[in-house]
């Protein structure tokens, strides 16, 4: 768990240092964005590598685990879309960008930067909201598992294939851990496709 905490702190620090330097130096976004795009492609490419590395484990997982993993993925997407719509309306936020922020499913390093290409405020919401979702999963999964049941794996979203896999396996068992992994892999493949499509609706 310590490594996950260190990784989260590193990204928060990088984000905070960026904000401070950005506020002081006031660079033109158009001079920063070409580099941001390049790093975004690298982050998505690296996520693809991790999915490729897990593929064999998933192929051997068995039908029941695959079916439940698929059900968790569909539930995650349904929950994200409904929640995004519920959040956007009363707060007066852009509807589809808020749905995108929710569809990030905990993948803050993609969602935040992607949304900041459209709006700085939505970028912050996408980043902080999804970072918090990952942190809440790490902290509250044992409680959620008791209150809701195994469906609480959905709280981990895309992070259930890496960062939150440990806590899911520890408190719900290796089979549910594998189901979470199926969900994480599928969401990692779907999010880079869904977010741009929804943003342009």
């Amino acid at each position: 768990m310590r490594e996950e905490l260190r990784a989260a702190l590193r990204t928060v620090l990088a984000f905070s240092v960026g904000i401070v330097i950005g506020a002081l130096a006031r660079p033109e976004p158009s001079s920063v964005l070409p580099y941001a795009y390049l790093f975004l492609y690298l982050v998505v490419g690296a996520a693809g590598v991790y999915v490729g590395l897990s593929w064999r484990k998933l192929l051997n997982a068995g039908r029941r685990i695959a079916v439940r993993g698929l059900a968790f993925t569909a539930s995650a997407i349904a929950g994200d879309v409904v929640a995004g719509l519920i959040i956007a309306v009363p707060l007066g936020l852009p509807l589809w960008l808020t749905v995108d922020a929710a569809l990030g499913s905990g993948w803050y390093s993609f969602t935040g930067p992607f949304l900041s290409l459209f709006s700085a405020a939505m970028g912050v919401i996408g980043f902080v909201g999804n970072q918090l979702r990952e942190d809440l999963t790490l902290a509250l999964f044992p409680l959620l598992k008791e209150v809701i049941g195994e469906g609480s794996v959905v709280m981990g979203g895309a992070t259930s294939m890496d960062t939150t896999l440990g806590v899911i396996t520890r408190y719900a068992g290796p089979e549910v851990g594998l189901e979470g992994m199926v969900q994480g892999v599928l969401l990692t493949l779907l999010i880079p496709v869904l977010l741009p499509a929804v943003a342009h609706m």
Partner: protein
Amino acid sequence: MLSLEEILYMSLAAGLLVGLALSRGPGKGVRAVDLISTASILALVFSMGLVVGSELISIRGQAITIVVASVAIAVLPGLLGSLIAEALVRRHEGGA
């Protein structure tokens, strides 16, 4: 000229192929992928911070909305999804 989406899909597909190739090997390339992934995440998050920082004055007035929306995005989607998933699982296993 390729669009942002097209390059994203190509990056994902290329990464997937590299991952599949690496999964057949002795696993020596995984550490390099970890390094590239960590460095690119930090660089991406930093550059995103630069963009947000440069527009800090314009979004300062939305501070409360941003905080409320961030907390809601952290809690609501995962919670709703979990309840839907649990209902699906119980229905499926109840019917089995």
